[in-house]
């Protein structure tokens, strides 16, 4: 364990301190810059409605990103959130649309399913010591399958606004006359605040960071790491559940077999927001900002007449650049084996 001392080389300490404040500022500026750029280039972009759509399409990504931040900070990862999101929405929607359950129960079901899958992940990682990547890869495949199985392969049209049960769509967008209020953004902000609190000021959060910076030491401090892992993944799962509600509320209907790739946007957002893959470092606000970089790109690029397929290339490049920048500041010149290879 003596190596742990060297693992955090003096050079990188500052950057860790800075990152929590520093990086957020940087990312925030990037967000503003992007937004400004699109406003200038495309006149149609400068509309209240555009901001609305950016927000609309950001909710579900933001939610899974906030959730996945916790596993990432433990030094793990959760791949099951993307397909999971769709899976939960399908299950919940199936009950609502084809079994005639009330919408609010359907929503609860969504969240519960998320929590359960999250628990399974946590159990696999914490108790059965499976590599997080693999464990969640499996649940990713499973949720992909389970979703369609439970919804009998159907696409699910959640109740539309106006129709009976359509009220739940107003959770994320409130129409007052012609005025449309992005209510969802309020929830996002509240959740961000809440989860930052959980991460920084509660035991669970504290121990999650602890595990991320030195699992063995945390164990020796007499903390039951198993529970902490489970907690981390349950959080991530639950947020995937919430995201599934957001998704169903924003988009007309949900289709099986989709959802792979969402997790990448979520994780990507978190990474851009300064969460380090090696664990121990990260902030919820950072994640929130990171996600908006991706979302603005996603919504903005079509406006400057770029065909959809270019968007993927650009997001890919953005992601790598973000990590490269992070590394360059993190390792700060020392390609010391201890820092460069810390993860293993």
């Amino acid at each position: 364990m003596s190596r742990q001392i060297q693992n955090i080389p003096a050079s990188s300490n500052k950057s860790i301190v800075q990152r929590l404040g520093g990086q957020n500022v940087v990312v925030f500026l990037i967000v503003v810059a992007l937004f400004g750029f699109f406003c200038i280039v495309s006149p149609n972009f400068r509309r209240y409605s555009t901001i609305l759509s950016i927000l609309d399409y950001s909710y579900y990504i933001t939610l899974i990103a906030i959730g996945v931040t916790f596993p990432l900070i433990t030094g793990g990862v959760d791949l099951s959130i993307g397909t999971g999101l769709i899976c939960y929405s399908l299950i919940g929607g199936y009950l609502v649309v084809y079994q005639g359950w009330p919408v609010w129960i359907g929503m609860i079901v969504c969240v519960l399913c998320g929590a359960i899958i999250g628990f399974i992940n946590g159990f696999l990682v914490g108790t059965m010591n499976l590599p997080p990547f693999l464990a969640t890869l499996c649940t990713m495949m499973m949720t992909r399958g389970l979703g369609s199985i439970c919804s009998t392969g159907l696409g699910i049209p959640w109740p539309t606004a106006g129709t009976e049960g359509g009220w739940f769509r107003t959770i994320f967008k409130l129409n007052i006359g012609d005025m449309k209020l992005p209510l969802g953004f309020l929830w996002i902000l509240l959740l961000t605040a809440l989860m930052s609190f959980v991460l920084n000021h509660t035991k669970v959060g504290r121990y999650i960071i602890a595990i991320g910076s030195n699992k063995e030491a945390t164990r020796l401090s007499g903390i039951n790491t198993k529970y902490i892992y489970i907690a981390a993944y349950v959080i991530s799962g639950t947020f995937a559940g919430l995201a599934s509600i957001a998704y169903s509320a924003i988009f007309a209907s949900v289709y099986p077999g989709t959802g792979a790739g969402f997790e990448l946007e979520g994780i990507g957002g978190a990474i851009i927001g300064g969460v380090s893959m090696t664990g121990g470092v990260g902030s919820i606000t950072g994640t929130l900002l990171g996600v908006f970089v991706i979302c603005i790109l996603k919504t903005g690029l079509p406006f400057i007449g770029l065909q959809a397929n270019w968007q993927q290339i650009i997001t890919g490049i953005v992601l790598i650049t973000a990590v490269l920048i992070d590394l360059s500041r993190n390792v700060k010149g020392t390609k010391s084996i201890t820092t460069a290879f810390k993860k293993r």
Partner: protein
Amino acid sequence: MYRIRQSPLVKKIGFNRIVLFLVLLAMYCFFAVFAKNFVSYNRLLSAMNYAYFLGFLSLGVTFVIATGGIDFSIGPVMFCAAIMSGYLLTHYHWPLWLCLISSVVIGMLYGTLNGYLVAYKSVPSFITSMAIMQISKGVASVFTKAQSVSWPQLVQENGWYRNLIKTRVGNTYIPVGMIILLTTAIICAIVLNKTKMGRYLLSLGSNKEAVWLSGVNVKKWEMIAYIICGTLAGIAAIFFVAAYTTVQPGYGDQYNNEAIAGCVMGGTSMGGGLASIGGTFIGVMIISILQEGILAIGLNKNYQLVITGIIVIVAVYLDVISRQKRN
């Protein structure tokens, strides 16, 4: 039990491989019993359609995982290679052989990029491959204007490449693909266990720092692992189109999971340093038989995904506890 484990032959093959193989047999028997006329040569052939491209993907990713990394982009890269080379064939009328080569080359290029970022820029392999995945998808659909590409049919001109999976002789089919896949697997096994490259890959998977301090150029070798992986993805592309002719941009992610699953099932550990080509091979067979059987008993692919997931979890868990015992 213990005695069986210790017998030299078993030790040589590896206990887990044998178990895995038994699982494969058991599965086949199960479907033979429960699925309508499952036991037939054609069934196997069509099951193998799936095994071929998956096999190459798995073999490739085995090398990467052996170094303790992960390549999460093989599926889309395979699609990208298939689409681009196919487009060259159908729209720019390149000669077929050239397209086949170009497919492999494209795969190799992605592998190189991936490897460079991981080895020389020490970007976590998960993130790089994540990004490469996006990029390859995008590139493919930009290149083909977002339309799918259909490779020529057996009957059409340039159709001969489809004989790569099965060639008709009289009125029986010879599974050429299986022969090729097996040969490749054997070559991979030799490379991994008998050559300097393989030795270095396994070693740096086991302890990168140690190998580095021993004066080995780990960056170079690590990169090579990814190049191999990319190249095999390129070959996989050929076998994919040989089986299904049509590929459309923006897809292929699901094959990552199955390829990695097959490899891990076979006892290659995510920690790196331990890899078994034989195991990977059996793992792939299991997945393909499974998906054929699942269809045969009238269920759809979803069940296959779930079951595969469970198998992998169990396989990995056994691997984990066996390792815990050793430490």
